[in-house]
């Protein structure tokens, strides 16, 4: 099931002729990379085989492609790593890290002048909006926070009248924000990093929005690699990532020039996965 990978002859006998990397325009991290050329060239040089790179649009698509052996390395969120591990036997590779990467989490927001709601407990009996049932930051994390902190039944949260008066799925973070600002629903879960940007884009006043709570921090997306690649190749690719030191690149794509790729610990996503398990989010993927 390794597709083109098995036929190639690289430096070592069983290395493929080229490896394919998929970059995801991440809804959680929309400053998605447009210019990965330096990274690609660096890896190709270090590893000694060609690297092709694609822009993906959907994790599901990327994971399927990895499962069918059509791509080798992809950028994945916690949830999708878990799915990729189950479906395609993916392994963790590297994660961009630095002390000064801004923390990444989801905020619970309501209207600026809404005096009824001041904490997530006050959300009971209100209208609430998630982004989309497959979104980490727009659904899984906030739901996890609600379940853990308020001790709710994960299976019933979306049901009207259980905790919330009514639950809406808005399909995008800006929609959630707009909905709150215009009063279509009382509160919503919106990724923190872009609230300012969204307010500006929608020509809104920052005072229109009040933040009433937040989730735990969401780990940064990691690169994951197809598990059935030769061990020495995996190692070579990892080394290539780690040795990449282009500050411009990190400044542009990971918010700070100090960031670097570090090999991902095996327990990097443990906390997350635990959280996902408490809300039974992982059933479908198994």
């Amino acid at each position, binding site marked *: 099931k390794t597709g083109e990978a098995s036929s190639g002859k690289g430096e070592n006998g069983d290395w493929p002729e080229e490896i394919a990397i998929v970059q995801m325009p991440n809804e959680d991290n929309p400053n998605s990379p447009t210019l990965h050329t330096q990274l690609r060239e660096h890896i190709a040089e270090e590893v000694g085989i060609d690297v092709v790179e694609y822009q993906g649009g959907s994790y599901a698509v990327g994971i399927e492609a990895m499962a069918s052996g*059509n791509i080798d390395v992809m950028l994945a969120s916690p949830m999708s790593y878990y799915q990729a591990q189950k479906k395609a036997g993916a392994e963790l590779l590297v994660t961009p890290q630095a002390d000064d990467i801004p923390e990444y989490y989801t905020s619970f927001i309501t209207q600026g002048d809404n005096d009824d709601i001041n904490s997530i407990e006050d959300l009971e009996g209100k209208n609430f909006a998630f982004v989309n049932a497959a979104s980490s930051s727009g659904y899984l994390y906030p739901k996890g926070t609600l379940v853990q902190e308020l001790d709710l039944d994960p299976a019933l949260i979306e049901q009207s009248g259980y905790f919330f008066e009514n639950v809406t799925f808005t399909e995008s973070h800006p929609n959630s924000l707009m909905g709150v600002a215009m009063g279509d629903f009382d509160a919503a879960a919106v990724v923190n990093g872009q609230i300012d940007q969204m307010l500006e884009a929608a*020509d809104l006043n920052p005072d229109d929005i009040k933040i009433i709570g937040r989730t735990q921090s969401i780990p940064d997306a990691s690169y994951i690699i197809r598990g059935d690649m030769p061990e020495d190749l995996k190692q070579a690719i990892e080394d290539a990532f780690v040795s990449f030191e282009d500050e411009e690149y990190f400044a542009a794509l990971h918010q700070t020039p100090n960031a670097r790729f570090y090999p991902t610990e095996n327990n990097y996503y443990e906390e997350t996965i635990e959280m996902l398990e408490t809300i039974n989010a992982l059933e479908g993927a198994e």
Partner: protein
Amino acid sequence: MEMNYIRVTSKGSIWKMILLVAALVSIFVLAAMLINLNLEQFFARLENVPGVLNSMMAIDASIIPAALLELVTSLSLAFLALVVGVFLAIILSFLAASNITPNNFLSSFIKGSFAVIRSIPSLVWGLMVIASLGFGNTSGFIAMLFSAIAYLVKMFTGSIEDAGYDVIEAMRSTGASWFNIVYHGLLPLCITSFVAWITVRFEGNISESISLGIIGVGGIGLLLTQAIGTYNYAQTTTIVIIICSFMLIIEFLMTRIKSKITHGSR
């Protein structure tokens, strides 16, 4: 001659008319009740229009060179899928059009399968194509081809069925084969509407390339998705203007070609 009230429409068809109108109105009312629109809110928020439009009316010229370059990718992909799609769709739609189909079963089969193909969302196509072909333009081409053919078959069959029967009859009476009737009779007759549909589909292919971002196809669609994702409305507006103005040029060009075919070359 004694003449009382004279009907203009026969009694039966008046009743049919009334029934039809009643049915349509009640369907509409039912649907309106079902989705329960809040019209008050609608009118109240109309006042937002100038403000929002105003904030969207920004242009970021720095994206233009990149956009034009990506447009070339989109155009070549759209064009390629169009050429192959038109070729296959012409054959399929002559097989499917009820007035010329060689076999009624075949006709229903083609129409049915394309109705199904059209209903499958592009994400599903993306998945299947990726899983079998991997990322890249080849996949984009295939995915685009499917929707292009599905759409064109529908439009082409419509035009062929509109073309009527007398030409087919005349050609048939000369003993011309199915292909000959199609090629020498119906094709010259339908060519103008085909040109129109092809234009529409060319546009469709370009906008399709936007949803093809999910399978790693570049092009102007990807650029647009990114601009939207980063809430960069100046770039978004600029890209949309580029797409629209290009499409307008094509539209008017094709209209001229069409009228040239219709009215002869004089």
